[in-house]
């Protein structure tokens, strides 16, 4: 088994991202049923969202800066150059939107959501936006991964000829 640093960092990035989306979904469900009894859970889940997205930001950033350039070159030469030109370019900037919203969530979750309808609406909106943009970023990651995979397959096929 050969697991490189690049693999670990990349999978940690995706793992933190998924956990961040799940934590935001947890906030969404709890906030829909906000009452004094689940206020602490909402705040914990909101904090977990921010921590997971910060982890995804750091791991993704490290991988993108240190390990992505050769993969980018490979994708651009392969059959799916749009995996970089459209999906990676969008993902690397859309992620900042998710990250900023994830940092906002614990601040908004400090409100008394069981008695403040306006605050609950804000928290529900922020959590939903994190889930939607987070899943879009995860999906873009899958397209980028496939772009690299088929570029390698095309390279192998060319070498075999």
């Amino acid at each position, binding site marked *: 088994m050969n697991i490189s640093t690049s693999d670990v960092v990349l999978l940690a990035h995706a793992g933190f991202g998924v956990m961040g989306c799940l934590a935001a979904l947890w906030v969404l469900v709890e906030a829909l049923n906000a009452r004094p009894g689940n206020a602490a859970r909402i705040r914990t889940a909101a904090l977990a969202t921010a921590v997971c997205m910060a982890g995804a*930001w750091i791991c993704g*950033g490290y991988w*993108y*800066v240190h390990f992505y350039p050769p993969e980018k070159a490979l994708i651009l030469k392969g059959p799916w150059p749009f995996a970089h*030109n*459209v999906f990676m*370019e*969008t993902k*690397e*900037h*859309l992620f*900042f*939107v998710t*990250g*900023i*919203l994830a*940092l*906002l969530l614990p*601040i*908004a979750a*400090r*409100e*008394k959501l069981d*008695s*403040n*309808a*306006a*605050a*609950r*609406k*804000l928290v529900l*909106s*922020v959590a939903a*936006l994190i889930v939607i*943009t987070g899943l*879009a970023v995860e999906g873009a990651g899958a397209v980028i991964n496939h772009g690299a995979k088929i570029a390698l397959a095309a390279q192998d096929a060319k070498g075999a000829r």
Partner: protein
Amino acid sequence: MTSATDTPRLAAATSGFALAAAITVLFNTALAWAKDAYAPLNDFMKSIAGHHWTTHGLADLFLFAALGLFFTKSKSVETISASRLTGILIAAVVTASLGLVLWFAFV
């Protein structure tokens, strides 16, 4: 008995950082467009933190924190209603996200 409309206002920090987030996500998209269209800006950002993406992220974080603290302390956002603020944030995120997708797909 309390109802859901008893305390419709948001705390100063919530309002301040929500508006800061709305401005930051729009700034994020504008900066992405600018550095993609103007290579010297991309190079300049690379020279600051070693990679344009790192500088971009740090700029977003700095703007979010600075605006959030400013709006919280100045209490200038308290004149905006909570529901309007939520609407502004949703509109900003949708606009910023579509702005990124359409730019990189078609420009």
